[in-house]
């Protein structure tokens, strides 16, 4: 099935990352570990910034709405509507209508990250056993204490599910960030006329590895944040 030369192309991609090559347009040298590393750092930076902004905005709102049990329509509709946003149109519109640059890109990516975090936080808090909340009230906990000490810890698995979905959307869209003037690893994929097929394939492999590493890291974070009691319950 795999045509001859496919493996050769993967070899070229490897060379592209570790030693670089002349640009397809001629003249300048492209690729090489340093250039590729810079692009990867940019992609991680943009992704983490956007994810951070999305969490900062969506988590408190989700916690409060979930605690009060109000605003279900807003929280759930936001999640559904968020999925329907075409990433490419969002980035393209951002670039032409608002302007290119890191700040605008982070805003656009955060917009993609907010809906899943908001919805999952709301749903996670609502799913907390009401009797636990009543017990906390009976012990004289304030609303704030109930949210941070009872509801939040119990909702962590669901909330982290939302954060992971958000991170997958954000890192995937950060790949097309070069369209909005911020050079990430996606530049290797999009600017094929400069980097050639070896660069494109190198970009694709690295983006995939980066996305998988982030997912793995977040599942580690989830494990660390999950309370001992919940872990025992699962086992």
């Amino acid at each position, binding site marked *: 099935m795999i045509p001859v030369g496919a493996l050769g192309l993967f070899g070229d991609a490897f060379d592209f990352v570790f030693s670089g090559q002349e640009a397809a347009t001629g003249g300048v040298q492209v690729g090489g570990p340093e250039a590729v590393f810079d692009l990867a750092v940019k992609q991680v930076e943009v992704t983490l910034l956007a994810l951070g902004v999305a969490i900062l905005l969506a988590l408190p709102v989700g916690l409060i709405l979930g605690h009060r049990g109000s605003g279900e329509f807003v929280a759930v509709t936001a999640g559904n509507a968020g999925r329907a946003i075409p990433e490419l149109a969002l980035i*393209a519109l951002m670039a032409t209508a608002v302007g290119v640059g890191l700040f605008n890109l982070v805003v656009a990516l955060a917009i993609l990250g907010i809906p899943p975090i908001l919805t999952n936080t709301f749903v996670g808090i609502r799913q907390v056993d009401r009797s636990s909340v009543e017990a906390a009230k009976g012990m004289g906990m304030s609303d704030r204490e109930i949210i941070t000490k009872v509801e939040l810890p119990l909702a962590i698995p669901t909330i982290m599910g939302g954060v992971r979905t958000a991170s997958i959307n954000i890192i995937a869209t950060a790949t097309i960030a070069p369209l909005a003037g911020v050079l990430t690893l996606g530049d290797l994929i999009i600017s*094929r006329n400069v980097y050639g097929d070896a660069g494109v394939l190198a970009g694709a492999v690295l983006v995939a590895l980066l996305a998988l590493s982030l997912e793995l890291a977040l599942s580690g974070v989830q494990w660390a944040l999950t309370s001992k009691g919940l872990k025992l319950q699962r086992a």
Partner: protein
Amino acid sequence: MIDFVQIAAVDDSFFKDRSDGGCIQDNNLFCPSWVVDNYDRYVDPTLQHLVLVLVAVGVGFLIAFSLAILAHRRKWLASPFLAATGVLYTIPSISFFFLLLPITGRGTTTAIIALTAFTLQIIFRNVITGLRNVPNEVTEAARGVGLTPKQMLWRVEIPLAMPEIIAGLRIATVSTVALATLAVFANGGGLGGEIIVGSNLTFKTGIIVAGSIAVIMAIVFDALILLVGRLMTPWTRAAAL
């Protein structure tokens, strides 16, 4: 092999506007008269987009549904299936397109494979959850009246899991409609081409039209699947009354 940059080339006809040239020159966020004159350039991309979504979700559903049934029978398969589909879900589609480049080249097939791979996790997770949530008493009763495992699956478990299955299908379809705009990078057609054309210009209306068609398509699909789900589970409405 055609570069998407070349597909995205704009000819003079892009700016044809017989009714109101000022609207294009002013270049506000949205120029209705341009849309009236140019709606025909969105017909083919919309149809291609429909095909991408229908095939990707259809094939994805068949695969994920079969895997879920298999994992329901043999419980130990659930974890490896979840992990494998999780990897496919996590790899960004645009990266997936080009990983397939040495194998399937560029084109609609490549785009569909990557989009299909994305849907598996969502559908698999929902089907398996739905099957697991069928109450034990119900399956015991079904066994009691003498249903074979096969009959039990198709007549009892799958119908009762239908709300979860439909929910998964809705999420997968809506996400795929949005994601299929990226198929243009694999030279797979769809509405993304018009968005790329738009991003090479300062004229914004094209991006808004193409993006809006995708959003509307997502909403229509969502409503249709919801409706089919309601029709397939008449008892849920009876219980609500």
